[in-house]
């Protein structure tokens, strides 16, 4: 779906990380966690290509003026890394954005009651909040959030408010455990005897480590990937990743945009993996 969204709020929530709330058509309320948006940062040709962002949250909000009825909204959480995200952070309330979405596949929630293990690195948390919101309805949910420093660990309060038990780790020890979030994840799995289902989003190195943990311990694991996207709808073939059967002789490329961005980690080929 293509729609024009009006910005309601755009604030820096941690140094370099921004949260943008905007109006949305009612159809966005049924966006699956893990689905994403292609955002046209501005109507000029600079930047030309849309930028992909996860859906952080959707819901209804009550406009402040008397007599107004509640309206659907949409939220993104983004990190300023370059031109496009820099320009996004310059936008203000009432500015309009041209959006495509929700695109791609979402997470598979798995059976109710089961322990849900959410693993997020830095801005990788973005699509996991909506997921947590769904999962807490019928399952115990734990979040393992990691980052370089405490500035890279986002929105923990929001997750806690949902009733999610949060574990944090930072590489410099400025928040939670000192080290990688995967270490904290492994301690937890040691403790629970590898129960549950993993949902991960974050830098590629982290996803690879989480996928390896899932595989070794036989815990089902879904990952949400990134890819350099031009179209977001399976047409340009720019965003592909390697499927598990991939080799130079029998290539197996998948579109991150339409086959993903969420994949079962065993469906993918992880660099350096044998067989």
């Amino acid at each position: 779906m293509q729609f024009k969204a009006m910005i309601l709020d755009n604030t820096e929530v941690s140094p370099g990380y921004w949260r943008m709330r905007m109006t949305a058509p009612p159809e966005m309320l049924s966006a699956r966690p893990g689905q994403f948006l292609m955002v046209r940062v501005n109507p000029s040709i600079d930047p030309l290509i849309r930028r992909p962002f996860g859906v952080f949250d959707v819901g209804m909000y009550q406009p402040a003026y008397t007599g107004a009825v509640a309206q659907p909204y949409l939220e993104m959480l983004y990190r300023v890394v370059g031109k496009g995200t820099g320009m996004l952070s310059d936008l203000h309330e009432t500015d309009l954005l041209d959006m495509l979405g929700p695109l791609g596949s979402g997470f598979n929630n798995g059976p109710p009651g089961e322990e849900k293990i959410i693993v997020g690195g830095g801005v990788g948390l973005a699509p996991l909040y909506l997921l947590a919101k769904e999962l807490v309805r019928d399952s115990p949910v734990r979040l393992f959030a990691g980052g370089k420093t405490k500035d890279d660990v986002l929105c923990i309060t929001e997750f806690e408010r949902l009733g999610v038990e949060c574990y944090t780790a930072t590489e410099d020890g400025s928040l939670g455990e000192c080290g990688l979030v995967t270490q904290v994840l492994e301690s937890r799995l040691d403790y629970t005897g590898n129960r549950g289902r993993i949902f991960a989003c974050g830098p590629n190195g982290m996803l690879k480590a989480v996928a390896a943990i899932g595989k070794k311990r036989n815990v089902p694991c879904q990952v949400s990937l990134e890819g350099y996207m031009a179209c977001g709808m399976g047409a340009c073939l720019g965003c592909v990743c390697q499927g598990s059967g991939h080799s130079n002789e029998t290539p197996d490329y998948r579109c991150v945009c339409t086959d993903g961005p969420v994949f079962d980690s065993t469906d993918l080929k992880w660099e350096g993996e044998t067989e």
Partner: protein
Amino acid sequence: MRPDMTVAIGNLKLVNPVITASGTFGYGKEFSQYVDLEKIGAFVTKGLSLNPRAGNATPRIVETPGGMLNAIGLQNVGIDTFIREKVPFFRTVSTPAIVNFFGSTPEEYAELARRLDEIPEVAAFEVNISCPNVKQGGIVFGTNPVSAAQVTAACRAVTKKTLIVKLSPNVTDIVEMALACEGAGADALSVINTLTGMAIDLERRRPVLANITGGLSGPAIKPVALRMVWQVANAVRIPVIGIGGIMSATDALEFMLAGATAVQVGTASFVNPGAAQEIAEGMEKWLSERGISDVKSMTGALEG
């Protein structure tokens, strides 16, 4: 009165001159949520080869000022899967499906043309000659008039369907290429494919694209495309399809003035998935506001 928007390319009658470009519109179906296919002239499918092709490693795409580079590496499902999985969709729309294809020898091109010729759902061919000729040391067919003519003739020999040859802009003399293809039996020419370019990631000291170089498309190349369309249209008698950086109805009409009979919209569909239909509608509006009754009257109507 609504202007007559129909144009003809070979045997092909199009409801309007707007076609979506190969590699930017999947196999037609992908964009059907955003574009009413019946409202555009035709769509060209992703470059097809005899055998499936994996394409290049990633990154395959990078944005550049006013454009983008792609090095997809001609990933495609191969003709068997194409016939099985993609062709059935063509039956569901009245819009002509033009099949873009390529090979690494003239024989491969001919074999593709022969097999596609049997498929009634395939309305026309667009031959992509921007591919390395394995027999001639990897020099691309599209930069050598003799090879280009050879490929064209090989396809012409096996089909009566409309045969469009898509020219590469990476040549000293595009007119020479155009004349060679016309002479070898092409019914129309698509002008242009992408310009070869490169992007570098300074911090990593590496080319951005896994393939090192890629094809430049988008608004950045429009002036070069317009010049080449003008040159080619002034030299050949067959219709020219203008391609390169078309983002709006104005752009499309400029290509028609330069001599194009129809246009293709590529990168614009990424920026705005409804672009092709909006451009067709915008052209019609522009013409009717000025009382111009037939879009065909724009072709080559450049003055001065």
